[in-house]
């Protein structure tokens, strides 16, 4: 048996592969930090796209449109104190990445009768960035107490 030569076969295996393990660890950590950085870039780009929403929306308060704090997992048409269209109240939508993506692509087609008279965001990348920002900001303690 090959490992019979050493009393601690795992030790010699570690010694032989130490360089590979270190390289692999470094690679994985690099990939993870790249992913974190990508996610952070998404949120930053999304924040800039959110500027387009600021005529009507805010994170922390209802305006012409409802507030966005607590958006994810919320049933559409359910923010207290905001007067929704009948269409939105009856839409049955629960906001998540998929429903937001469909709505933001073309609000008036997704929910005919919505008061959000807006053509939508055509670019899937922009929608994805905006949703990443909304996910982060709508649960942020700084904005949403």
């Amino acid at each position, binding site marked *: 048996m090959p490992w019979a030569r050493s009393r601690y076969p795992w030790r010699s295996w570690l010694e032989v592969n130490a360089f590979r393990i270190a390289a692999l660890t470094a690679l994985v950590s690099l990939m993870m930090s790249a992913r974190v950085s990508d996610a952070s870039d998404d949120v930053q780009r999304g924040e800039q796209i959110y*500027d387009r929403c*600021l*005529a009507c929306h805010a994170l922390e308060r209802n305006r*012409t449109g409802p507030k966005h704090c607590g958006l994810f997992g919320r049933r559409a048409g359910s923010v207290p104190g905001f007067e929704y269209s009948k269409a939105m109240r009856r839409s049955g939508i629960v906001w998540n990445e998929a429903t937001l993506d469909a709505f933001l692509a073309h609000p008036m087609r997704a929910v005919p*009768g919505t008061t959000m*008279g*807006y*053509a939508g965001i055509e670019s899937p990348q922009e929608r994805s960035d905006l949703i990443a920002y909304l996910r982060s900001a709508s649960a942020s303690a700084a904005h949403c107490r």
Partner: protein
Amino acid sequence: MSSFLKLAQADVLDAPRRAFLERSGGLLSASAIALMAGCESLAAKNAMADDGSDARILNTALAAELEAVAAYQLGADSGLLQPATQRLALTFQGHHRAHADLLAATVRKLGGAPAQPKSDYGFPVERLKAQDDVLRFAAQLEKGAVSAYLGAVPVFEDRQLAKAAASILGDEAMHWAVLRHALGEEPVPVAFVA
């Protein structure tokens, strides 16, 4: 007879509307006046397959314009603005009021109930401590308004209403640029707005 047909048979400029146009004087652009005419062209199309979406879009824009009027009032009353800036704020407020009046009149013509001003907009007053804070707050609203109108223009059923919305968009883009300039920022930072 539907309200749209009544509109179609009405004078192009009935008395109250004429009075409104006279009151508004130079503030109304040709496109804005066309908005009123747009009601007639919408009416002429009868009520065909109209689900009231134009009135809803206009009403949403109206609600945002009313908030802008209140926001400029907040700025003007803040005591933070220098006299020249205050004059500018009041001029821009006048534009928003003219937009709001016109949008409300058009919503009414389309048979809708115009949005009303809120008693409290919950503005973030705690963040307004200097003139630049007020200008930045106003610039943010104007930038958002430009995007909102840009998003509304393609979805109007009536092209005259789209044209009028584009006219308002142009005005609010100018506000945004002037406010950026007042803040010492590049007035027109990009070739295209989004």
